[in-house]
């Protein structure tokens, strides 16, 4: 049986000691989000994740969703758990109090996302999509639509979806065919077929609010011709009482590799009544404004699965007795040593841990910037935060979801054959983690976003939001003895990133394939350096606190040990990535397409 304990000690460390989440309480509207309040909220969220959601993870995977006559049922236990979750106010944690939300920071919501996704990734999809729909409606819909729909989404009594994908249209949204026809009463009729729609149909909530990207009759034929429509499953009256069934239905439940308790639906719209959200032909822009948070939230899915994979692998490595330490028995009184003594198993565990803790710090640091971008009183600070967020979102989404899968895979290796057998529960993490690399913009497309859009933006204006603070930190800490063994390793990788950045930027201008061929390697290099920066910051704090840490000395000591492992065993990948990037696009593009 797998285990899960919310990693509250590390969460607190990152929030309070590394990134300074205490500044949240200084932001307008977040006065109540003091460290003590955040702590109390995290404690209760941990309880819910451990005791309510986690016990449904394996059963939800085994039983999956079912589909009969257009009706989708979630696995046993999900509906009750969802009701408890919503009654606790968790669905509306970061929603506006004006619409019944709790008005807490996005950072806190992301930290809780991580725990929810560790405990039960499939479950997390339902409130996750509702939150995306909430954000899009809040930012772009009319006051009437907001008043009607936002309180329901914040309470979780209605859930949301994002309907973009169609059979012929995935990454390239310009291929969307779904049509919207204006009606004399100001509404629209939507007709078309969407596929892969998460939470498209289910039994958790009284109504489902579909946000559909569709094309108006006179719209341009490409991505400039998309508009966003709010299309409810049941049409509510002005008081929010659900009424007639709308002309839309679930035609099929997809059979898939993982997240089996999340209903992935083919949705048919047959002249469904809808309301325009935002301006005509501005649908993509409306989606973009909520994309940053949504992509960060998908990153948290990767982090969540990586965390639980690590926890289980670490425990198993202490219990499983096989073989003897290479230098002789470490536990002679036992029939064999626990596998944690083997260097190769330790290599896995340390890699998993260094990636998980590094990604947590990185993701939270960007989460904090999201709140600062939204709320800070100083416009210059808001702008700077917005630029850093824009730059780092593709990095966090792609790298952290890659880590999610890689770490789950490493965890399975620690379990050996027992990991491949279902009972131990860890093969589910490999299957569940995989999707996060694909949806919400594939990781390849994230890399293109980084090199194609974010890097060249205004002559590297966004890039400077990352490079300058790193340079400042290095300047300030260059003589810090606690970091002496780490700084040279970091500076070497940082130098490689600078070199690669320059190369990709200059070559990319001449030949876009150069940027495209380097993109994924470049994103990974960027992410490793960004993780290195977080590890430096964590190591600095840990070294400062260690001498007076008392009972927490073990925590800080482990931080420093993990930091050293990261710098000496993981960060050197930067060299290889840099060489691969510098070698250019030729070997990638040489093969004629028909030769594949």
């Amino acid at each position, binding site marked *: 049986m797998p285990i899960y*304990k919310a990693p509250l000690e590390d969460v607190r460390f990152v929030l309070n000691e590394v990134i300074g989440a205490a500044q949240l309480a200084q932001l307008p509207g977040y006065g*109540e989000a*003091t460290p*003590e*309040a955040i702590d*109390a*909220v995290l*404690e*209760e969220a941990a*309880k*819910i994740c451990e005791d*309510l959601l986690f016990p449904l993870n394996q059963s939800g995977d085994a039983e999956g969703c079912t589909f009969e006559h257009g009706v989708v049922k979630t696995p046993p236990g999900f509906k009750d758990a969802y009701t*408890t979750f919503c*009654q*606790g*106010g*968790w669905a*509306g*944690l970061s929603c506006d109090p004006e619409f019944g939300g*709790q008005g*807490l920071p996005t950072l806190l919501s992301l930290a809780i996302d991580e725990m929810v996704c560790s405990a039960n990734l499939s479950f997390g999809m339902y409130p996750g999509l509702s939150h995306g729909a909430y954000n899009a409606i809040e930012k772009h819909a009319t006051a009437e639509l907001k008043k009607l729909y936002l309180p329901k989404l914040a309470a979780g009594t209605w859930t949301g979806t994002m309907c973009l994908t169609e059979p012929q249209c995935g990454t390239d949204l310009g291929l969307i065919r779904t049509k919207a026809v204006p009606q004399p009463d100001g509404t629209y009729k939507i007709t078309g077929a969407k596929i892969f729609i998460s939470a498209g149909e289910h039994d958790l909530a009284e109504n489902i609010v579909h946000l559909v990207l569709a094309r108006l009759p006179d719209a341009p034929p490409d991505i400039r011709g998309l508009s966003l429509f709010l299309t409810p499953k049941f049409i509510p009256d002005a008081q929010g009482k659900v009424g007639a069934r709308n002309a839309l239905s679930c035609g099929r439940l997809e059979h898939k590799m993982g997240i089996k308790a999340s209903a992935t639906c083919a949705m048919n719209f047959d002249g469904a009544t809808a309301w325009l959200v935002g301006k005509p032909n501005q649908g993509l822009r409306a989606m973009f404004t909520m994309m940053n948070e949504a992509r960060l939230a998908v990153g948290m899915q990767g982090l969540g699965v990586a965390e639980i994979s690590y926890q289980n692998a670490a425990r198993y490595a202490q219990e499983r007795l096989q073989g003897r330490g290479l230098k002789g028995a470490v536990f002679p009184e036992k029939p064999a040593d626990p596998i944690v003594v083997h260097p190769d198993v330790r290599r896995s565990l340390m890699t998993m841990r260094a990636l998980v803790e590094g990604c947590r710090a990185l993701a939270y640091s960007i989460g904090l910037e999201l709140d600062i971008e939204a709320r800070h009183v100083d416009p210059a600070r808001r702008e700077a935060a917005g630029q850093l967020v824009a730059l780092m979102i593709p990095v966090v989404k792609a790298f952290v979801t890659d880590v999610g899968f890689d770490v789950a895979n490493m965890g399975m290796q620690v379990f050996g054959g027992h990991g491949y057998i279902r009972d131990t529960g860890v093969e589910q993490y490999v299957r569940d983690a995989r999707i996060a690399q694909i949806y919400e913009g594939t990781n390849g497309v994230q890399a293109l976003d980084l090199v194609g859009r974010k890097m060249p933006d205004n002559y590297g204006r966004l890039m400077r939001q990352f490079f300058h603070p790193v340079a400042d930190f290095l300047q300030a800490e260059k003589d810090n003895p606690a970091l002496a063994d780490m700084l040279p390793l970091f500076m070497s990788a940082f130098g490689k990133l600078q070199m690669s950045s320059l190369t990709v930027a200059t070559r990319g201008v001449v030949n876009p394939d150069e940027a495209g061929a380097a993109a994924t390697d470049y994103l990974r290099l960027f992410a490793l350096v960004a993780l290195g920066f977080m590890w430096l910051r964590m190591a600095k704090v840990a070294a400062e606190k260690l001498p007076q840490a*008392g*009972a*927490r000395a*073990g*925590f800080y000591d482990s931080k420093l040990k993990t930091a050293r492992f990261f710098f000496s065993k993981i960060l050197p990948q930067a060299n290889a990535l840099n060489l691969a990037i510098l070698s250019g696009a030729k070997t990638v593009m040489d093969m004629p397409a028909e030769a594949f």
Partner: protein
Amino acid sequence: MKILVTVKRVVDYSVNINIKADQSGVETANVKMSMNPFDEIAVEEAVRLKEKGIATEIVVVTLGVAQAQETLRTALAMGADRAILVPCDGELQPLGVAKALRAIVDKEKPDLVITGKQAIDADNSQTGVMLAALLGWPQGTFASKLEIADGVATVAREVDGGQETLKIKLPAVITADLRLNEPRYATLPNIMKAKKKPIEEIKPEALGVDLAPHFKTLKVTSPPQRAGGIKVTDVATLIDKLKNEAKVI
């Protein structure tokens, strides 16, 4: 009706207990601490009585270190109205605690006191019982069901071999057993509201009680590791071992 609920901060039930190196007690430094699970049940019962309109105010009280405030906040987030912390850093034993609680009862004058049937740290099961005795109040211990009407509490309690139902006059002390209810998760709005609810601090001296321990703990050790089983050659050896090694017959 006013209810006083007692709560205690203990090592979380899910934590593997470690003994301090000097054998003076259980390691609590940097260990996850939570509200004693039976106290959670006690708080839940009080909140339910308030929701039914039977109780009007719920006061939670704890004796303990400053961090026990967090335990009080948890109770406030579940629905208690206000809290009292009697700060004390030293070792606490049931009689001292019961005396302090009596002083709090004298001050607060509740109609009902609900305690957990025991705290999972030392498993003494004494505090609630002693408190009732000190107050001269009737008690319904190990309650698995509680109904209150017309100044009388009807208490179903689990006893060896069955269930016993008592009717006792209020004011009374009830100690909560596992099956009394299933405590709720605190809601987000209530967690935020709990931050604003008052926690009053009353120094032990102000209560005029002596909290000094009456018992001295000589040492604390882990239970012996279970040794592996063995096969005996015949019945005579078995009986011999049961008599002389295990000393059970």
